[in-house]
């Protein structure tokens, strides 16, 4: 193995131009591929506080229609509807109410600082489903929410802005649109890319102060499918409709709830059944093109590199190397080069994506012009695995044909070939 590396580095030094171009080409290919993938993945990849994205589903909106009449009505769930439709579903571990929309409001701190904050209303179960990091104080409790107490959990930037530091904030009062809230705790800042949970101040969502519950979030047990929940929810709709005076109250129209992360990352309307995005062929096509095009170039380059030292492969054959081993050696050698290029590419991609937040301005409804994705998201093993996968594909695409050609060349032709 050590020898293999020595040889590869010798070859790299001997042909600095080809090596340079190969590395640059590989790095560029992996860079583009990864930036593209990251832009796609940010909508569905789990990251704190939405670390359980693949197990969280949302009950959102309800539509009521009056059969035979033109009348219909749709919008947020109220607390009763939320409980009757989504409460105690089989396969659900936890449930909470939360407002799907964040608001922008004026807040005034003790020193008179006025500043706009993004607020989101949530109940106490919210803190159990989403993995926020508490850095001071505590979350507000179910009792506090039910009693309609004016309490709030704020993020650390807001804590610094209004109170100087996170440690200072708990117990202090914060004026939000004219109401005085007591801060119970401070959490680490949340990226606006966490579209379902982003906020700077979290306010209690309770029957006392709010008419609607907004949405519900369901944390389902491992292995429970969306379909099994859909079947249950649809039965709940039927059961509710059976009890309703349809002419007077209308009937509930089922729209495929609950929605998974992939669905809520797309457009969701209150009177519409959102399409569950199936296999996204456009994305796959772009990914393929992003790998195939550079692979063709790399392949040509590798081909000429091999041809220029084809005699070496003839000699190896003469001394007992088999065709398959020639093939495997070339692919393996090229893999190492591709990996080096790939590591450069993925590093650049992470740095680039991390530092150019405007890439993600399209995500969610955040008004932020620039959204820095959390580093934890970019450094996930899935991202690295995908980059390695891209390298592997790139390597196989680019190395197979030249390696096959080299392995196929008869030893005598390889040995006697003039160094072209």
């Amino acid at each position: 193995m050590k020898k293999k590396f020595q040889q590869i580095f010798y070859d790299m030094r001997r042909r600095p131009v080809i090596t340079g171009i190969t590395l640059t080409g590989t790095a560029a290919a992996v860079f583009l591929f990864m930036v593209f993938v990251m832009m796609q993945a940010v909508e569905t990849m789990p990251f704190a506080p939405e670390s359980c994205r693949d197990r969280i589903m949302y009950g959102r909106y309800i539509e009521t229609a009056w059969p035979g009449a033109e009348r219909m009505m749709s919008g947020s769930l109220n607390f009763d509807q939320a409980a009757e439709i989504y409460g105690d579903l089989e396969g659900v571990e936890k449930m909470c109410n939360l407002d799907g929309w964040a608001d922008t409001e004026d807040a005034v701190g003790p020193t008179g600082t006025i500043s706009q904050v993004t607020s989101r209303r949530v109940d106490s179960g919210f803190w159990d489903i989403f993995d926020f990091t508490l850095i001071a104080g505590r979350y507000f409790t179910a009792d506090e929410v039910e009693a309609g107490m004016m309490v709030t959990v704020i993020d650390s930037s807001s804590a610094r802005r209004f109170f100087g530091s996170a440690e200072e904030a708990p117990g202090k009062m914060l004026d939000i649109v004219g109401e005085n809230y007591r801060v119970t705790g401070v959490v680490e800042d949340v990226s606006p890319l966490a579209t379902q949970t982003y906020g700077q101040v979290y306010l209690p969502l309770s029957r006392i102060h709010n008419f609607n519950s907004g949405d519900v979030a369901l944390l389902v047990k491992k292995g429970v499918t969306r379909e099994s929940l859909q079947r249950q929810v649809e039965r709940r709709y039927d059961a509710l409709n059976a009890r309703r005076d349809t002419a007077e109250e209308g009937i509930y129209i089922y729209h495929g709830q609950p929605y998974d992360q992939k669905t809520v990352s797309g457009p969701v309307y209150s009177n519409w059944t959102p399409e569950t995005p199936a296999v996204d062929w456009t994305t796959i096509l772009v990914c393929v093109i992003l790998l195939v095009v550079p692979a063709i170039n790399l392949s040509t380059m590798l081909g000429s590199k091999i041809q220029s030292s084809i005699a070496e492969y003839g000699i190896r054959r003469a001394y007992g190397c088999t065709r398959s081993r020639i093939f495997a050696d070339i692919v393996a050698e090229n893999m190492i080069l591709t990996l080096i290029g790939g590591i450069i590419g993925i590093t650049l991609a992470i740095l680039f994506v991390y530092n150019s937040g405007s890439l993600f301005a399209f995500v969610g409804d955040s008004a932020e012009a620039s959204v820095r994705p959390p580093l934890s998201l970019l450094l996930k093993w899935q991202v690295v695995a995908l980059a390695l996968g891209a390298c592997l594909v790139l390597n196989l695409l680019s190395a197979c044909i030249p390696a096959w050609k080299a392995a196929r060349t008869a030893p005598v032709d390889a040995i006697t070939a003039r160094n072209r």
Partner: protein
Amino acid sequence: MPEITLKGISKVYRTKEIETTALDNVNLDINHGEFVSIMGPSGCGKSTLLNIIGLLDTPTAGTVGIAGITAAGMSDTRLAHFRNEHLGFVFQNFHLIPSLSVYDNVELPLTYRSSIGAKERRERVEAVLERLGISHRIKHFPSQLSGGQCQRVAIARAIVGKPSIILADEPTGNLDSAMGEEVMELLHSLNRDDGLTVVMVTHNEAHARGTDRTIRFFDGRIIS
């Protein structure tokens, strides 16, 4: 029984316009332990013949028998293993692998033999380099060696696997006369002391005279 048996060997190269007959019905037996030289004008088919004996090339017609096997119909893998165990090659322009050190170049044939462990490989490579007097160049790369040294390394590589036959195509062609003599002396010693069969193509009458038998070629045929 002869170690190498060529029966009715022909080799014809066909391209769109021309057909070249490199070998024309060659019959030849070479005995075990013989040192045979092949001579003839340029283009008469000497290298072609050597490559066919070395199982690097296949004849258009005829059969090749070497060390008890018949080459026809052997799979690539079996051919590779056979070459690895029985044949050693020496070329006019050395054909060392430039990215490998002297040690690694010589070790090459052994790395394709799974039956030999790392320790034994090292011992054998070191012994061969010692014998050829190039131990002090073990870490050098081919580009750092003289022509004579390169050919010694190439010979070391040819014999490290303990083959029974050495095939040498103008081994002194790129060397000055003193170096050439040294290489000839080495080949003779391998033939004499180790009992190797040596088949050598040469343009040098004097070198040919020193061998057991000289086969003369003209236009793809043996003329004497």
